[in-house]
């Protein structure tokens, strides 16, 4: 039995039909067609599917879609404003913080959730915020540097 779920995705109202037990990642990727959250492990262990629900970072693969009824959901797809990249996106580019890019959407959303509530984080706070996100390629250092640089520049966005 399909159930309708309605929520706000990046400030737009969306409605999808989901099966009971479907997770938010499936609803976003297969239902809405927003493929920016990635499927890495499907068990809450890699962070590639990180999105922001009601201001909190969430692993979409272990979040029930039906639990998001009426919620505000943010994904990487909503970050850029027209031609302007979000400071986090620019900083990831400038600091070479992506190689294969598979972890990047989750990293950026985890970082955005941090900067939204703590605009001037310390290095330790940045590390803690992305501690659940695995990156195979970069060695993390460029990602940490990019997030700190985005925090320093964010007032201009």
């Amino acid at each position: 039995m399909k159930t309708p779920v309605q929520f706000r995705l990046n400030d737009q109202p969306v409605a999808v039909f989901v099966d009971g037990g479907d997770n938010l990642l499936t609803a976003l990727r297969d239902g809405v067609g927003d493929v920016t959250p990635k499927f890495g492990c499907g068990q809450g262990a890699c962070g590639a599917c990180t999105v922001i629900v009601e201001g909190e970072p969430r692993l979409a693969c272990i979040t029930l879609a039906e639990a998001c009824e009426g919620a505000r959901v943010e994904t990487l797809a909503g970050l850029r404003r027209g031609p302007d990249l979000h400071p986090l996106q620019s900083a990831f580019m400038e600091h070479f913080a992506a190689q294969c890019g598979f972890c990047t959407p989750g990293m950026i959303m985890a970082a955005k959730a941090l900067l939204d509530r703590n605009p001037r984080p310390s290095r330790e706070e940045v590390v803690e915020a992305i501690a659940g996100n695995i990156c195979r390629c970069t060695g993390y250092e460029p990602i940490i540097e990019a997030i700190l640089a985005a925090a320093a520049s964010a007032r201009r966005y």
Partner: protein
Amino acid sequence: MSRHRGRGMASINYPIGMNLGGDPSQALVHSNPSGKFTVALSSIDLGQGMKQVTRQICAETLGIPIEDVFVDTADSDTGPHCMGSFASRGTHRAGNAVLAAAREARGVLLEAAAEELEVDPGDLETDGRGTIRVRGAPGKSITVKEAAQAGQFKQGRTIAGRGIFLVPLSPVDPETGEMSPATCYAHAAMVAEVEVDDETGVVTVVRLDSAYELGRALNPRMVEQQLVGGAWMGVSHALYETPEPYYPDPKAGGRDFVEYLMPGPGDIAPHDIAVLERPAPDGPYGGKGPGEMCANPVIPAVANAIFDAVGVRMDTLPITPEKVLRALKAQGGARPQHRAGR
């Protein structure tokens, strides 16, 4: 019960590419209707920068801006032949193939331009920004786009080039066992500093210092990116990762990211890197490429640092706390190797 510091080093002489029946890569370069160029390649970009580096090589050779080159690595069914992205061969093998293809395409491009300008192709030069000029005649020029479109619509000419780079099979000499598996070598030296807890067996990499010689760094920022990320992977191989921790019995292996251990952002060590550039005579613009060498020296350097710290020789990977504790027990405790007062 205490923590011991140790320092270890490793250096490597690293072959670029491999030689199992010869090592070829092909590339095709052609102009598009817009007067821009496409490189067709089957060598896949896994994030290491293959697309960027081959794009630079093509643009540099044709004398056009980098924005005017597209690299299509989409499909190994329909693309030209390539052995693949492995053995640290991308920059050198695929890069050389792109260089050859772009050179041939450049020759045709200059012929098309020469016909339009009514001069000899040998008198033409490119400015790197998409204009072809007659040497010594400043006013006489044509854009690459105009030349490519003249080739297409007036002259009936395909502005295109083919390139292959082949390192032929080097057979093993039956008498001496000698062979030559590679045409050029990259080099690295790495110093690792670790802390070993003799109560828990946990090894922490405290810092890394390295020097890499990898031919000309065709894209210095991407080289650095590879070296930083690769060293992390080296630490991970040295201390964390294994699909079969109780090899040869695979039963207790990690099956997913919950059980397969990798260091996280909180486990990284400061890493100071020096890049030395000694252009390879047979490399595209002198490039050899960092490749797998990024991860390799970390492992022996860490193992040597553990020996320096507590006196045990670890010879299987990864060097887990359990293995360190067993070795310490067999030895009768930690025996720091370094001289006092260092």
